[in-house]
């Protein structure tokens, strides 16, 4: 008789909870690149237009948010040092989001801000509320209230603020509930999402996982608390400045606070890297570290917008800013981290019952590394060319960039579904 872990608290989140999020996100990325290829001319116009709205929300919700929701259900136990409270709430979150996102995106694409958009937005809010309750109860059940857990919980609260505000903005299109029209509040909605949700969550998870992958001796929780304070202070000051309608240059204050937080986080990662035991780092972690640093690109663009607002064509800079966030920073992180998390989930699913009974492949062998590298190359080419196309307002250049981004999405989907459908060879056991 064999017994394992009789006093073990390590019952992990079921793969059945996590994997649908990964599959959904991969398909969303493919759809977003198809939308971008069919709407390149929209990137020469004002940023508030139906295709741009549809693409942005496919990227922000279908791609970025869905993969974070999936990965975080798996990684929360590591972050909060406790079990995920409920698989049911996780399923519920997936069902609401997976229905709500395409409905909302369709409504934006057709610019139908009536009942359809409201219905889609409501479903998305229900998904976020399910997720928040699950995380809240998971943290409540643990004794450890560490900085990573607080980062995650705060990020989800900001996510709910973003999606609720988004829903109200949709409503405001047909019923005047705000003093100004919805377009006026777009930057508020976008920045609460980008800084409050994506940045806080990425730092909360990254500050735990990157040192873990590096097997680093470096620990500095106090520094991470400073990062937390600076970024939240930056975001809250931004909200105040927005509502007080202060001079544009005052926005340099939140930029400086958030920038200082990001630099401090960079310093944390640098020291983790310098004090690592594991010298040979795989490509997935290398790309993840590099992509975290890519937040610098949109921050430079944003500073340029604030400083040179009246001197240059800000329309292009605003589009470039959004593009460098969703197709730059967030996409680069996901392209790297997918292959650092997903193969292990599938490996556990396929081989945990076969452990010790024969030779099992390494999780890295579950996807093609050649395609992973090709994916990185096409992505970088596409990102650079498309960014150049936005600056030049040139549809031909934008089309070339969009084709490379589409190839990136196809290669990414190939590897993701290769992992998803992986089965053990019958002659191995």
């Amino acid at each position: 008789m064999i017994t394992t872990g009789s006093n073990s608290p390590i019952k992990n989140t079921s793969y059945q909870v996590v994997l649908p999020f990964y599959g959904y996100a991969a398909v969303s990325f493919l759809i977003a690149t198809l939308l971008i290829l069919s709407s390149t001319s929209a990137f020469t116009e004002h940023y508030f237009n139906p295709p741009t709205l549809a693409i942005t929300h496919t990227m922000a919700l279908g791609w970025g948010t869905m993969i974070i929701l999936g990965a975080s259900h798996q990684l929360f136990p590591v972050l909060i040092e406790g079990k995920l409270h409920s698989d049911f709430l996780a399923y519920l979150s997936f069902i609401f989001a997976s229905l709500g996102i395409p409905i909302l995106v369709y409504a934006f694409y057709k610019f139908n801000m009536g009942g359809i958009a409201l219905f889609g937005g409501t479903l998305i809010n229900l998904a976020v509320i399910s997720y928040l309750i699950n995380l809240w109860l998971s943290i409540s059940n643990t004794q450890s209230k560490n900085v990573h857990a607080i980062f995650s919980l705060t990020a989800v609260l900001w996510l709910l603020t973003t999606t609720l505000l988004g829903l109200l903005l949709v409503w405001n299109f047909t019923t005047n509930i705000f003093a100004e029209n919805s377009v006026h509040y777009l930057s508020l909605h976008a920045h609460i999402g980008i800084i409050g949700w994506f940045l806080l969550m990425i730092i909360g998870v990254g500050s735990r996982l990157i040192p873990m992958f590096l097997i680093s001796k470096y620990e500095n929780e106090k520094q991470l608390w400073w990062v937390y304070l600076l970024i939240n202070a930056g975001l809250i000051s931004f909200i105040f400045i927005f509502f007080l309608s202060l001079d544009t240059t005052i926005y340099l204050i939140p930029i400086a606070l958030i920038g200082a937080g990001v630099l401090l986080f960079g310093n944390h990662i640098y020291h983790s890297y310098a004090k690592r035991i594991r010298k040979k780092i795989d490509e997935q972690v290398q790309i993840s570290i590099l992509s975290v640093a890519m937040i610098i690109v949109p921050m430079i663009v944003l500073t340029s917008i604030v400083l040179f607002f009246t001197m240059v064509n800000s329309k292009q800079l605003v589009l470039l800013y959004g593009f460098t966030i969703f197709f730059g920073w967030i996409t680069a992180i996901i392209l790297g981290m997918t292959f650092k998390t997903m193969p292990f989930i599938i490996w556990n699913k396929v081989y945990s019952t076969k452990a010790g009974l024969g030779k099992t492949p390494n999780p890295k062998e579950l996807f093609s590394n050649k395609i992973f590298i090709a994916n990185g190359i096409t992505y970088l080419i596409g990102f650079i060319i498309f960014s150049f196309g936005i600056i030049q307002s040139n549809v031909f250049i934008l089309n070339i960039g969009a084709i490379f981004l589409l190839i990136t999405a196809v290669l990414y989907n190939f590897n993701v579904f290769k992992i998803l459908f992986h089965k053990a060879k019958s002659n191995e056991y």
Partner: protein
Amino acid sequence: MNIKTNNSEKLELALTNLYHVMDPEIDLNIIDLGLVYEIYFDEKSNNIMVEMTLTTQFCPMGESILESTAQAMKQSFPEHEIHVNLAFEPPWNQSMISEAGLNFLNS
């Protein structure tokens, strides 16, 4: 390697298979990682107790590593009952990695 035991000879036999149990993420075996704290052989009850840890609590690969450890022990001692228990006291840290493990990670 600093594994507590009450039977050094049987420990040697156990190690031959435990050296093949890997942490899939780090790609290093559990012995050189320093995950195994104690192996106790209870001859009267025919039980073997393995006390081990993980590099982090709630490690996503934890269940597989425990299962692999149990299977490896069963291969060495097919007539025994194997019990693998997790311990997080003391918590694992980098100083528990063996010289060979450090050389592998530094290469």
